[in-house]
């Protein structure tokens, strides 16, 4: 049972190395390369996925920022538009008020002028009338009674507005 037999050992070596070489060529080499290829592909896939996730996160962050900026911009624009509108409204109102004031002024001036004109013509008329009346008075011999009556008539014939 324990005797040494070099022949058996040699057969063991021959068999073992034949199996080793055959197994390596036929099976182990492809199996090991397939395994390591798969491991590599898994590793790169994981790395890719991680990188893509990071990119996506960065993009999302960027987009979020952009949306926030756009929001702010819009708010600002609305505010600007509002203030602009407010301003223009105030301007328009002011202008209208001014114009109205100008118109009123103009109307006042016109009235004043008309009044002056009227007064002027009235005055001329009064002078004419006074002259006429004076002429009549001078031309007629009148008593005190008549005199008074003439003046009264004259005064009543005058338009009321000229009294003052």
């Amino acid at each position, binding site marked *: *049972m*324990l005797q*040494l*037999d*070099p*022949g*058996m*050992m*040699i*057969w*063991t*070596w021959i*068999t*073992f190395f*034949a*199996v*080793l070489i*055959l*197994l*390596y060529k*036929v*099976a*182990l*080499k*492809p*199996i*090991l390369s*397939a*395994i*390591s290829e*798969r491991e590599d592909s898994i590793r790169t896939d994981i790395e890719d996925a991680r990188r893509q996730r990071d990119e996506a996160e960065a993009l999302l962050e960027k987009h979020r920022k952009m949306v926030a900026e756009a929001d702010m911009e819009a708010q600002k624009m609305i505010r600007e538009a509002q203030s602009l509108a407010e301003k223009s409204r105030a301007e328009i109102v002011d202008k209208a008020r001014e114009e109205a004031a100008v118109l009123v002024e103009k109307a006042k001036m016109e009235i004043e002028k008309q009044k002056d004109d009227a007064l002027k013509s009235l005055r001329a008329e009064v002078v004419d009338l006074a002259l006429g009346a004076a002429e009549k008075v001078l031309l007629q011999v009148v008593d005190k009674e008549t005199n008074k009556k003439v003046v009264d008539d004259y005064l009543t014939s005058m338009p009321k507005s000229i009294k003052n």
Partner: protein
Amino acid sequence: MVFEQHEAVADTAAAQSENIGTFIQEHISNSDSWHLPGLHVHLPHIEPFNLFGATINLSITNHVVMLWIAGLFTVLLFTLGYKKNRPVQKGWGIFIEMLVLFIRDEIAIKNMGEKDGRRFTPLLVTFFIFIWIANLMGLVPLFTTSTSNINVTAGLAIVTFFATQIYGIKTSGPIGYYKNLVPHGVPIFLWPLMFLIELMGLIAKHVALTVRLFANMTAGHIVLFALLGLIVIFKSFLVAPVSVGFAMFSYLLEILVATIQAYIFTVLSSLFIGMSLNPEH
């Protein structure tokens, strides 16, 4: 009546046990024929020749045939089980891939480091599968365990031994490699003694590797046959249930032992090669 029977059993037991002993011896030892039921296949005999003072008998013996069958079965298992063009394996392919991956990651890379582990994975996978199948063959009727022959286990251990020496010398040079055998920090005057002890340890490690596998595989078979032999020795069927029960138990134990021994051989081989590749600093 039972007493008489026992007396008769005791008489014949002594005579029978000798026969059983030789039967077991014959079964365990190598022979030039393969015993198939009703047929003795006589294997070719090659004349022994002398080389360097040793008689080398290259006759094809029973164990050589068993080795070939184990080798053939190993290769067939891998070629038929693993489909190369399939990116994801099925059935046996998964098992083979798992086994290869386990040996690569848990045995080779763990004991040798990343680079050397990958390099020696094919050797270790072959060690494991080949030894495992050779061990298990003893449990299949008509076949015998070639690893219960010490020459076979010695041959396998010598493969490990040469792997450690050749790759150790390759990585650190012949002087560096043998200098590294002696642990660092040893006083200079102890060097010759330590070197001798380490050299003996180196040889003893591989002898232990040889004997461990051989003894485990032989012992199991002897126990199995001895248990079954009890039936013949006692010439009584009353023994049969006990014997068969124990034999069944040791058969199942043998399956476990066959696997464990193949695993241990592989792990120790990777450990020895790893140690010679990366000596302690």
